[in-house]
C-alpha cells in the first residue's frame, strides 16, 4: 500500500499551486502604508505561494525616486510547525541573498520583522518574468534573444554552483527569471516554495514540469539546475508548457519540429541539458555556456534536417549478381525452388537461377507487367496490362492457359485452395480455378482494383481505387466493407484480429478483422502506397512523405519513424530484427526494428517501389533501373 495515495483528502493542485489559497490569504498592505518609517508601499508586484511582493518607495532618498521591492512573508499559516518552517526558510533566503553578489541576483538592502510579518527589501527590477512575457506575446520568440538570456543564466548558475558549499537554485523556470528592458536577466525567488510542497497530502494533478527526475527523489546537484534551464529553454523556444505535458517528455516534442527557426545545433544543446540521466547532461553551467556559444557560432540558415547518414562502408552485403530487364521493374521478385521470377514493364516474365542470375526462360505477354507472379506448385500465375491472366509452367515457361479479363491487371494474384484471387482495372474481383483457368466466381466492386488481396484463413481483403476495402470469404460473399476517404492501392495486411490498410488519403487504418469497424487510424504526411507488414505487434509501413513508420498495433501510437531520402512507397520486409525497405531515392534501407536506427543501405540505379525477397541468405531487390540485384548478406 502506498501511503501517499491514501491521504485524507484528494486535492487538485499543480498549475493552481502558484495561486493563493483563500484560507491563507492575509490582508494585503495598502498603497501608501509605510514600513519602518522608510518604505512607502506603492502596489503589489506579485503573489507567490507563501509571500507577496510589493513595490515600495524608499523615503530616505528624498531627492530621487528610489524604488525597491519588498517581499513579505505571510505568517497566517494555521499549522504552527509549518509556520516555523516557513519563517526559517524566509530567513535563510534573506541570509543567503545577503552574502551573494552577482549582476543577475537582486541585491538585498534590508531585512526586518514587523509584528507577525517578516520583510525582505530588495533591488527592484523593472521588467517582467519570462512566464508573463510568454503569456503577453504571440509567435515564437527571437532565437538570439532566448540564447542571450540562456548565456546569462549559465553565468549566474556558474556563480551559484561555485559557492562553497555550492548553491543549487532548484526552482529555475520562466516565472523565476526576470528580464529588464535592457535584456538583462535576474533570478528571483530563491527557493522559498520548495519547503511547503513536501507537506502536500492526497492526490495531486499536475507536475512541476521543469524539474529533473532526481529532484523528485530529493537529490539535487548543479546538473539539476542544468536540466531546469534546458526545460525553460525548451518552453521558451517551443511555447509548449511542460506543466501541461507528461513529465520528462521533452524528447517527444523535438524543438525544430515545432519551431524550425531554431538551429539544429542549438536544439541539440537544449536536448542534452534535458537528458534523463544527469551523467549525460552538461556537467556544469560553464560547459553548457560553451556549447551554447559554439552552437550559435556554427549557426547556418535553417534548412531541412539532413537524413541520417547511412554508412555503407560496413555494409554486410555483397552484390552476388544483377540481371537487367528491358524496362522498369515495379514488382516484387518471387523466389521458389531456386528460381527467381521477375516481371517487368518490358512485357516479360523472367525465370532466373537464384544461384547465378542466369536466364532459365522468359515469357512475353502483350503488355507491361505491374504485378508479381504467384507460384502454385508447378505453375506461376501472372496478370498483364494486356488484360490477360497467364498460367505458365514453372519448369520451362510453357503457357498452360490464359484468361481474358475486362481491364488491365496491375495486381498480384493471391493463391489458396486451388484458386487464384485477384482484382483488375475493370473493378471486378475474380476467383480463378488454377487448373482450368475458368472464373469460379467474381464480384463487381465499385472502382478499379490495383490492390493485391490480403489473405488470412478464409478471409480475403482487397482495396479499390475509390477507397473501398472489402472482406470476402473464399466463396465471394461479402463479410464487411469499409470506406477510406481515398483509394486503397496498397495490399491490406490481414490476421486473425486486424486488417491494416494504407490509403491515398494519407492514413494507415487498423480495422477489426471480424467487423470491419475502424479501430484507429494514423495520419502520415502523404499518401500511403506501401503495403503494411505486422510483426510482433508492430506495424511497419512506408509513406510518400519519406518516412518508414513503426506503429504499435494495439494502441495506434508511433513507436519510431525513419526518414529515407525519398518516398517510401515500397512495402517493407521484416527480417530477423531488421526492417528492409526501398525508397524512390534508389536506396534499400536496413533499419533496426526496435528503434528505427539505420543499419546500412544499398544504392540501386533507380527508385525501388517493391518489397525485397529473402531466400536462403540472399536478398533479391528490384528497381526501376530495369535491374534485379541479388545481395548476399554476411553473418
Amino acid at each position, binding site marked *: 500500500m502506498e501511503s*501517499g*495515495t491514501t491521504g485524507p483528502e484528494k486535492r487538485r493542485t*499543480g498549475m493552481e499551486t502558484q495561486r493563493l489559497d483563500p484560507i491563507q490569504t492575509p490582508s494585503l498592505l495598502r498603497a501608501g502604508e509605510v514600513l519602518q518609517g522608510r518604505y512607502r508601499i506603492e502596489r503589489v508586484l506579485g503573489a507567490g505561494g507563501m509571500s507577496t511582493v510589493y513595490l515600495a518607495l524608499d523615503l530616505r532618498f528624498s531627492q530621487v525616486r528610489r524604488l525597491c521591492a519588498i517581499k513579505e512573508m505571510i505568517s497566517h499559516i494555521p499549522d504552527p510547525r509549518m509556520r516555523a518552517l516557513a519563517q526559517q526558510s524566509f530567513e535563510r533566503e534573506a541570509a543567503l541573498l545577503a552574502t551573494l553578489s552577482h549582476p543577475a541576483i537582486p541585491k538585498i538592502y534590508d531585512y526586518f520583522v514587523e509584528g507577525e510579518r517578516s520583510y525582505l527589501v530588495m533591488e527592484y527590477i523593472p521588467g517582467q518574468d519570462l512566464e508573463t512575457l510568454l503569456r503577453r506575446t504571440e509567435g515564437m520568440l527571437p532565437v538570439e534573444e532566448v540564447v542571450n538570456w540562456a548565456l546569462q543564466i549559465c553565468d549566474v548558475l556558474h556563480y551559484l554552483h561555485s559557492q562553497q558549499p555550492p548553491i543549487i537554485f532548484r526552482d529555475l523556470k520562466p516565472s523565476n527569471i526576470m528580464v529588464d528592458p535592457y535584456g538583462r536577466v535576474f533570478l528571483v525567488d530563491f527557493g522559498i516554495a520548495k519547503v511547503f510542497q513536501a507537506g502536500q497530502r492526497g492526490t495531486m*494533478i499536475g507536475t512541476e514540469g521543469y524539474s529533473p527526475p532526481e529532484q523528485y527523489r530529493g537529490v539535487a546537484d548543479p546538473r539539476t539546475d542544468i536540466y531546469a534551464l534546458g526545460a525553460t529553454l525548451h518552453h521558451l523556444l517551443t511555447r509548449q508548457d511542460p506543466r501541461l505535458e507528461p513529465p520528462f517528455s521533452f524528447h517527444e516534442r523535438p524543438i525544430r519540429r515545432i519551431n524550425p527557426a531554431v538551429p539544429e545545433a542549438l536544439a541539440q544543446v537544449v536536448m542534452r541539458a534535458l537528458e534523463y540521466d544527469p551523467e549525460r547532461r552538461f556537467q556544469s553551467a560553464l560547459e553548457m555556456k560553451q556549447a551554447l556559444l559554439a552552437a550559435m557560432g556554427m549557426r547556418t540558415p535553417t534548412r531541412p534536417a539532413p537524413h541520417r547518414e547511412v554508412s555503407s562502408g560496413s555494409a554486410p552485403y555483397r552484390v552476388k549478381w544483377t540481371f537487367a530487364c528491358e524496362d522498369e521493374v515495379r514488382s516484387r521478385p518471387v523466389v521458389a525452388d531456386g528460381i527467381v521470377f521477375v516481371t517487368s514493364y518490358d512485357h516479360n516474365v523472367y525465370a532466373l537461377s537464384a544461384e547465378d542470375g542466369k536466364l532459365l526462360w522468359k515469357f512475353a505477354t502483350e503488355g507491361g507487367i505491374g504485378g508479381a507472379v504467384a507460384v502454385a506448385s508447378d505453375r506461376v500465375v501472372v496478370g498483364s496490362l494486356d488484360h490477360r491472366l497467364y498460367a505458365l509452367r514453372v519448369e520451362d515457361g510453357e503457357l498452360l492457359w490464359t484468361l481474358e479479363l475486362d481491364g488491365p491487371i496491375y495486381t498480384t494474384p493471391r493463391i489458396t485452395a486451388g484458386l487464384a484471387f485477384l482484382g483488375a482495372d475493370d473493378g471486378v474481383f475474380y476467383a480463378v480455378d488454377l487448373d482450368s483457368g475458368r472464373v469460379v*466466381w467474381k464480384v*463487381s466492386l465499385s472502382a478499379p482494383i490495383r490492390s493485391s488481396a490480403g489473405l488470412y484463413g478464409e478471409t480475403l481483403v482487397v482495396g479499390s481505387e475509390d477507397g473501398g476495402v472489402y472482406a470476402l470469404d473464399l466463396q465471394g460473399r461479402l463479410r464487411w466493407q469499409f470506406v477510406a476517404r481515398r483509394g486503397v492501392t496498397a495490399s491490406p495486411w490481414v490476421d486473425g484480429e486486424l486488417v491494416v490498410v494504407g490509403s491515398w488519403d494519407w492514413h494507415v487504418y487498423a480495422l477489426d478483422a*471480424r*467487423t470491419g*469497424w*475502424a479501430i484507429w487510424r494514423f495520419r502520415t504526411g502523404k499518401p500511403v502506397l506501401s503495403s503494411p507488414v505486422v510483426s510482433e505487434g508492430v506495424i511497419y509501413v512506408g509513406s510518400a512523405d519519406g518516412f518508414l513508420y513503426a506503429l504499435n498495433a494495439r494502441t495506434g501510437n508511433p513507436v519510431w519513424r525513419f526518414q529515407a531520402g525519398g518516398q517510401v512507397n515500397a512495402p517493407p520486409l521484416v527480417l530477423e530484427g531488421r526492417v528492409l525497405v526501398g525508397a524512390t531515392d534508389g536506396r534499400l534501407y536496413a533499419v533496426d526494428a526496435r528503434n528505427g536506427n539505420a543499419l546500412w543501405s544499398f544504392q540501386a540505379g533507380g527508385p525501388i517501389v517493391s518489397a525485397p525477397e529473402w531466400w536462403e541468405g540472399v536478398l533479391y531487390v528490384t528497381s526501376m533501373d530495369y535491374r534485379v540485384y541479388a545481395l548476399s548478406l554476411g553473418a
Partner: protein
Amino acid sequence: MKWLKRLFQRPETREGVSPVPPDVQRDVPGSGPEAPPSPVEEPRGGTVPLPPMPAQPAAGLRFGWATDPGLVRPSNEDAVLIMHIAYQGSRELLPLGLFLVADGMGGHRGGEQASDLAVREIARYLTTRLLVPHLAHRGPDHPIKELLEEALQVANAQILQAVPGGGTTVVGALVIGESVHLIHVGDSRAYLVWPDRLEQLTEDHSLVQRMIALQGLSQEEAAGVPRNVLYQALGHPSRLNPGYRRVSLPPDAWLMLCTDGLWGEVPEDRILQIIWESASPHEACHRLVQEAKDAGGHDNISVILIGR
C-alpha cells in the same frame, strides 16, 4: 435440447442468411453485362448477401460491480457506469458493453461532481456515436479509438466548465464481442485476471510510474518519489492524451476495472484468489471491496469485473 443446439451452433451453418442492410449494398454496384457465366453462385452488386458474423455466443457479457466509500473518506467520490447490449434474435448483433469507473478529487464536492460528470458524459457521447449506430447494424463513422478519445475530451470540457477545482481519473472498457477497447487517464486501472496472475493493461499517468517506465527505477529509488502526483486527469488544463489499448477478452480470463482504493489496498495475489474463489463476478466484486475495507479502507473503492 434444441435450444442448446441453437446456442452453440456456428452461425455460418445457419440456413437462410439475412439480407444485406441497405448501407452495405450501396457501394457494391452490379457486375458488367458482359460478365462471363460462372459455375457457382455469382454475387451481384446490390444483392451480395451479407453472411452472419463469425461465431459468437448469442448471450451477452457477464459482469459484476461494486463501489464503496471505504472507512475513512466522508463520501464516495468514485463513480461507476455500465451499459450493456445483450441480444438474441433473428440477426446477429454482437454483444456490446461500456464499463466506466472514475475516481474524483477536489474539495467542496468537486470530486464527486467531476467523476459523476465524467461517466455520464462519456456514456452519453458514445451512446450517440456508437451504440445507436450499432443498434442499426452500422459500424461507427469514426475509428473507435478516436470516438473514445473524443468522449473523454467532451467530458473534460464539461468538467473544466462546470466543476472548477474538481478533477477525476477515468478508466473505460468498450467491449464489442471479444474485442476490448480500453481508454484511461490517471491511475484507475484495467487488468486482465488470468487463472494464475494479474496482467495490468493500463499504465498510470503518475509521476512515479513515468519514472519507473523511463528508467526502470528500483524499488528503493521509487520509494522516495511522491506516489500521489498524477500528470493527467479529466478537469485539469494539461493536454489530454488518454491511454488507449485494444485487447482480446479471452474466455478464461476476467477484465477488471478498479480505482486505487482497490489496487492500492489489496495485494495482487489476494485479488486473484478472491476472484477465482467467488461464484459470480457480483460476489467477487463485493468480496474485493470488503477486503479493501479490511485492509483499512483508506480510500473510496470501486471495481467492475467483465467476462464472456
